[in-house]
C-alpha cells in the first residue's frame, strides 16, 4: 500500500534524520512506528503526506509516487490526526468534521449524514455535540472529533501522530479501545506514531522500532517480543515487559532439557535407583525413538514389586505441552496436572523437556530478582 524505497531525509545543515528506509504497509493494517524522541518516526510519517518532503528515494502509495501527486489532493485522500488535536476553534464540531467533505463539494445532505454517522462512530452524541465549539469539549472528546474529522472524506489511509499522547491515562485507554473497534470495522491503513510501547503493543498489527533515523525491526508484536532482532529493540521494549506477560515467554525458556526418561520394559526396581540417581520423583516413559508413552511417579512404585515392568505401572500423561507453547499455557495447565509435571514434546511427538511446578516457579522468581537487582 504505502511503500518506502530507500527513503532518506536530510536537512540543509547536513543532518540526516531518516536513513534509507525500506518498508511497505499492508492494506488495512495498523502499523505503529515507535522509538525515542528524535528517532525520525514523525518525520517518516509526515513524508507520506508530504508535510515533510523527502530528500532521497521513493515513496509510493498504491504504486503512485507521492512526489508526482498534487500535495493538496494527496492529503485529501489521507486522514490526519495529531497530538495537539488542532480543531478549528471558530467552527462547531459539525463544521469541523464537515470541512473536507464540503471542500470536496459533497451534497449538503450527504455531508450532514456523514457527520452524524461519524459522530456516532467515535461515540459522541450528535444531538448534544454537533452545535458545540471545540473549547466546550474535554480533551478526550476533542480528539474523538479529531478522529471523526480524519475519517470524514473516507480516506483509505490515516496518519496518526501520537494522537492520544496528551490525554490522561484513562481517556487514552478508552480512545485506544475505540480506535481498535473502529479499525476492526473500517480496515483503514493506519500509520500510527507513538513513543509508548504499551500503546504500540496494544494497537499495532505490526510495529516498526526506529532509532537514529533507521528502522531496526518491523514485526508483529509477538515476534518483536519473542525475537527482538536488535539489542536496542529488546532494551526499548524492556525484558521486564516480556516477563510480565507470560504470553510472550516461550516454554522452551522454562522447561528442563534432558528430562529423566526411561523405557517401558524396565522394572520398578531399576526405576527407583534411576530416580535416586537423577534426584527426581517422576520418570517419563518413552519408546525407543523418544516418543512419549506415559509417566511413573515414585508414589506409584511404593505399592508394587521390584520386578514389575514399568509398562504395567505407568500412567497415561494427562497434560502435554507442545514446544511452541508459552509460559501462560503451562501456568494454566500446571494446577490441574496430578503430578505437577508436564512433558514438552516437539512436532514429532518426541519428548524434548519437562516443565514442573518447580521450574515454573524458579523461572519467574529469577525474573523478579533480576529485575530487583537492576532497579537497585
Amino acid at each position, binding site marked *: 500500500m504505502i511503500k518506502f524505497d530507500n527513503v532518506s531525509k536530510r536537512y540543509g545543515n547536513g543532518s540526516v534524520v531518516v536513513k534509507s528506509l525500506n518498508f511497505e504497509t499492508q492494506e488495512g493494517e495498523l502499523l505503529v512506528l515507535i522509538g525515542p524522541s528524535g528517532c525520525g518516526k514523525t518525520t517518516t510519517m509526515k513524508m507520506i503526506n508530504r508535510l515533510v518532503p523527502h530528500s532521497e528515494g521513493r515513496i509510493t502509495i498504491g504504486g503512485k509516487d507521492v512526489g508526482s501527486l498534487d500535495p493538496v489532493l494527496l492529503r485529501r485522500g489521507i486522514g490526519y490526526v495529531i497530538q495537539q488535536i488542532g480543531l478549528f*476553534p471558530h467552527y462547531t464540531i459539525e463544521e469541523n468534521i464537515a470541512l473536507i467533505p464540503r471542500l470536496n463539494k459533497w451534497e449538503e445532505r450527504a455531508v450532514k449524514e456523514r457527520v452524524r454517522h461519524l459522530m456516532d462512530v467515535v461515540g459522541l452524541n450528535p444531538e448534544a455535540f454537533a452545535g458545540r465549539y471545540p473549547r466546550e469539549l474535554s480533551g478526550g472528546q476533542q480528539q474523538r472529533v479529531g478522529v471523526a474529522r480524519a475519517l470524514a472524506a473516507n480516506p483509505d489511509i490515516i496518519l496518526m501522530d501520537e494522537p492520544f499522547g496528551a490525554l490522561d491515562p484513562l481517556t487514552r485507554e478508552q480512545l485506544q479501545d475505540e480506535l481498535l473497534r473502529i479499525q476492526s470495522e473500517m480496515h483503514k491503513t493506519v500509520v500510527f506514531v507513538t513513543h509508548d510501547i504499551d500503546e504500540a503493543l496494544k494497537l499495532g498489527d505490526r510495529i516498526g522500532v526506529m532509532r537514529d533515523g533507521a528502522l531496526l525491526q518491523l514485526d508483529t508484536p509477538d515476534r518483536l517480543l519473542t525475537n527482538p532482532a536488535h539489542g536496542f529493540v529488546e532494551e526499548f521494549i524492556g525484558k521486564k515487559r516480556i516477563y510480565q506477560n507470560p504470553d510472550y515467554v516461550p516454554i522452551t525458556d522454562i522447561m528442563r532439557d534432558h528430562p529423566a526418561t526411561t523405557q517401558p520394559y524396565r522394572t520398578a526396581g531399576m526405576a527407583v535407583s534411576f530416580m535416586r540417581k537423577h534426584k527426581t520423583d517422576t520418570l517419563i516413559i518413552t519408546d525407543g525413538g523418544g516418543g512419549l508413552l506415559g509417566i511413573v511417579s515414585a508414589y506409584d512404585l511404593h505399592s508394587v514389586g521390584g520386578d514389575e515392568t514399568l509398562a504395567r505401572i505407568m500412567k497415561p500423561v494427562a497434560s502435554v505441552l507442545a514446544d511452541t507453547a508459552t509460559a501462560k499455557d503451562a501456568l494454566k495447565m500446571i494446577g490441574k496436572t496430578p503430578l505437577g509435571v508436564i512433558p514438552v514434546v516437539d512436532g514429532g511427538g518426541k519428548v524434548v523437556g519437562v516443565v514442573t511446578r518447580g521450574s515454573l516457579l524458579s523461572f519467574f522468581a529469577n525474573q523478579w530478582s533480576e529485575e530487583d537487582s537492576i532497579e537497585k
Partner: protein
Amino acid sequence: MRSEPLWAQIVQQLNMRWPDLLQALLQHVQLVIVSMLIAAAVGIPLGVLITRARSLEAPVLGVAGILQTIPSLALLGFMIPLFGIGIKTAIAALFLYSLLPIIRNTVTGINNVDAATLEAARGMGMTDSQILLKVQFPLALNVIMAGIRTATVINVGTATLAAFIGGGGLGDFIFIGISRNIDALVLIGAVPAALLALLFDRLLGILEKATAPAG
C-alpha cells in the same frame, strides 16, 4: 465680548456658526473614514503578505514604524509638495499615519493562530488560500479590528491638524480659536472631536466584539 462668561460665548458662537460646525464635522468624519478605508485596504493585505513572505516583515514594519514617529504636523507638511494644499494631502497623511497599527495587528492576529490548527489544516489538504480565508483570517479578524479601532481613534485627533494645510474639519475651529484667542471656538472644535473619537471607539468596539471568532 471677552468679559462674557464662557458658556455665553459658546452659545453665541454656536448660534452664529452652527451650519459651519455641521459642515466641519461632516468633513472631519469624511477625512477619518476615507483615510481609514484606504489604510485598511492597503494595510490588511500588506500585513497578510508579510506573514507569508517573512523576509518582508522587518522592512515593511520598519517603514510603517518610521512613518509613525514623524510628528503629525511635520508629516502633513511633507505631503504638501506631493499633493499641494487641501483635503487630498490631509487624507494621504492620515492614511500613512494609520498604517502601522493595522499592519501590525494583522501580522499579530495571523501569527497568533495556533500552529497545531494550521498543521491540521495543511495535513487535511486545505490549500494556502483556503487556510488563509477559512482559518487564519476569521481567527485574526478581531485582532485586526482592534488595530483599526486604535488607528481610528488616533486618526480623529490627528485629523484636527488637517486644518493647518487647508484640509478642513473640526480643526478649522480650533485653529481660528487659537489665532484669534477665542476659547469658545477652540472648545466648539475640540469637544465634538473628542466626542467623535469616543463614538468611533464605541462603534468599532462593538464591531470588534462581533468579529471575535465564535466558540
